[in-house]
């Protein structure tokens, strides 16, 4: 306690010590000799120096020793004839007490410096932790942390003008001009502060008292230095009258904080860049896979079309080579394949749209009966085959959905069933199942093998059988994406007596009255 730098000099303990010492000397006056008494005085004077600054200690001890000399050293109540002895005694006592006082104050100063260092180090460490925490939480160190840490260090020149910290944090790389949009500002700088902060960011050196640059400024301009340059700058108001040493210490600490901020910002930016590069590479790889798959899906029907069309074209020179039925078959395959291409491009486009972030659904109240009816009508328009039947439970509630998307989903499922279950009847069934509306497209074809039942919903995955024939490409993946965009589900179910069932489930909500 006695050696803490903030221990206040106090006159009470030294006075008590002296009173005690005099009492002791008086008490033992006849039992100990003068030398022992003088030693007691010496001890008292050394002790009092612990509480007092060197000057005060010397003054008090000088007075006390004169008193001692006057009262106790013979001849009592007066300064005796042996002046030189008294001078030696008083001088030695004062010397010891002065030494003690100087040592004590130096010790105090050292303790004070050590404590200040520890405080500064702790502040830096705590600031570093706060930066890491904010980086982890927000993906970027929060510049407000630096402002809040610097704020208590700011010195107001007078009480009327409150000292405020101002920060400039660059958004990206240093802009060519001092465009205030290119930086994030914390605090409200005036025009001078703006110019100073921009200049400090550009040159990455500090301005202000003790820096050798713009010494007269009542503030430090400190760059937020990273390894590659400044990421911004901070303005810290200071009192130029505070003296060079405290200012230098303050600047070192503030600069250390600013550099920590600068490095954290730089690190965050590097991390972001690395992440973006990784994501970019991933997207590129995915895009390549998708493009390869799409190209494959388009190329197969194109090959058929080109083959059939060129056969018909070549036939013009030699009319006997193809009979009417063969020509009809070729034309039919061109039409069929072109339709397939149209479907693939519709599906791929729609899938890309739904796969994007927020695809806007055009929700309206729709009737399952109408949606099923429209899908059947579309199928009828495409082929003469009458393999598809509808069974819609009467009195179904209305659905809140995007009609065009659900139509596309049903159309794909029906087309899929017709393609994969050749010769089998296809049934579209709609019924209520508790709080859901169930629309199922069912066939009596070969079904999907157990190992592939989830994979068929992946884009560009097809069942083994399908791979040998035609691909639905993104068809089923799109259907599932549509179902999920509506908060519903699309699942495959194997039917008990053979065949596939694709079941769409959508939640039933109460329509308005």
């Amino acid at each position: 306690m006695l050696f803490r730098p903030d221990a206040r000099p106090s006159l009470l303990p030294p006075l008590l010590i002296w009173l005690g010492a005099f009492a002791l000397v008086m008490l033992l006056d006849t039992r100990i000799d003068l030398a022992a008494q003088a030693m007691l005085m010496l001890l008292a004077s050394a002790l009092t120096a612990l509480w007092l600054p060197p000057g005060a200690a010397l003054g008090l001890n000088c007075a006390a020793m004169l008193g001692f000399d006057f009262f106790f050293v013979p001849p009592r109540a007066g300064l005796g004839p042996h002046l030189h002895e008294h001078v030696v005694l008083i001088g030695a006592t004062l010397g010891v007490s002065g030494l003690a006082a100087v040592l004590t104050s130096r010790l105090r100063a050292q303790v004070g410096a050590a404590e200040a260092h520890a405080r500064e180090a702790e502040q830096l460490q705590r600031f570093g932790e706060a930066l890491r925490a904010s980086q982890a939480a927000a993906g970027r160190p929060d510049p407000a942390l630096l402002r809040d840490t610097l704020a208590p260090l700011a010195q107001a020149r007078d009480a009327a003008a409150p000292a405020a910290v101002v920060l400039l944090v660059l958004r990206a790389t240093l802009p060519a001009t001092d465009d205030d949009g290119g930086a994030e500002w914390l605090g409200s700088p005036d025009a001078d502060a703006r110019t100073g902060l921009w200049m400090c960011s550009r040159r990455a050196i500090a301005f202000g008292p003790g820096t050798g640059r713009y010494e007269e400024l009542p503030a430090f301009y400190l760059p937020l230095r990273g390894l590659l340059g400044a990421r911004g700058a901070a303005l810290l108001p200071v009192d130029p009258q505070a003296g060079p040493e405290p200012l230098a210490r303050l600047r070192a600490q503030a600069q250390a904080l600013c550099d920590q901020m600068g490095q954290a910002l730089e690190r965050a930016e590097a991390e972001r860049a690395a992440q973006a590069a990784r994501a970019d590479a991933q997207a590129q790889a995915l895009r390549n896979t998708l493009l390869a798959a799409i190209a494959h899906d388009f190329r197969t029907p194109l090959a058929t079309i080109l083959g059939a069309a060129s056969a018909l074209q070549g036939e013009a020179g030699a009319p006997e080579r193809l009979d009417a039925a063969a020509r009809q078959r070729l034309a039919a395959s061109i039409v069929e394949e072109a339709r397939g291409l149209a479907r693939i491009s519709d599906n791929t486009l729609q899938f890309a749209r739904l796969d994007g972030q927020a695809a806007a659904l055009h929700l309206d109240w729709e009737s399952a009966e109408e949606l099923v009816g429209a899908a059947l009508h579309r199928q009828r328009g495409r082929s003469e085959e009458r393999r598809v039947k509808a069974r819609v439970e009467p009195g179904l509630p209305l659905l809140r959905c995007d009609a065009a998307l659900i139509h596309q989903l049903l159309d794909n499922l029906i087309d899929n069933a017709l393609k994969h279950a050749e010769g089998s009847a296809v049934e579209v069934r709609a019924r209520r199942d508790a709080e859901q509306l169930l629309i199922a497209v069912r066939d009596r074809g070969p079904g999907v093998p157990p190992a592939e039942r989830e994979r068929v919903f992946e884009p560009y995955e097809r069942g083994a059988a399908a791979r040998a024939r035609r691909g639905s490409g993104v068809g089923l993946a799109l259907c599932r994406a549509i179902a999920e965009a509506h908060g519903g589900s699309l699942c495959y179910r194997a039917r008990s007596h053979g065949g596939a069932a694709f079941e769409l489930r959508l939640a039933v909500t109460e329509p308005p009255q």
Partner: protein
Amino acid sequence: MSLSVLLVEDERELRATLAEALRVEGFTVHTAASLAEGLALVEHAAPDLVLLDLGLPDGDGETLLAAVRRERSIPLLVISARDHDGGKVRLLDAGADDYLVKPFSIGELLARMRVALRHRGRHMVAAHTRYEQGGLHVDLSAHRVSLDGAEVHLTPTEFKLLARLVRSAGQVVTHRTLLADVWGGDCTEQTHYLRLYMAQLRAKLEAEPADPKLLLTEPGVGYRLA
């Protein structure tokens, strides 16, 4: 005299193919590759039907649609690669008779053209008040509806809805138009009324309501009476 068709399409291959196919069907075909050309031909060639592509080099086909609708009541079919329901509805509301999304087959195009022509032009007056198709007879002036010879009783709203579709038979009538004409202008968002009354109409007029032959649904756009 054969009917004349104005084909406005900027894609050369498609224009040539469509023009050829239409000539085979006996139409007189005028072709235009730009909006300006199309506007000039609407004036001078007096076509009986217009096929209009939307994305033209010198402007949007909607300008031509507006010009045609200001002056004539000839059928106009939009052919476009833009498959977007919002756009479809807007064009239909602006007076297009039908909307075909590319790619489409010639057969489909001809069928839509036949329907549009059947309900326009010289038969227009008759088409407005009488409708006969697949056993369904509707006589709007006599307020009578019969199916396979048997009288069908419709509620007043059902009849108004059917009458509105009969007046535009063959054409897509958008939800908004139906709601405004049958329920009134402040009901254009109440699609659920429409669903319920269409279901009732189908239950009364269709053999298989879930597989309709007459009261057809255009998902997300409107209804069409075949």
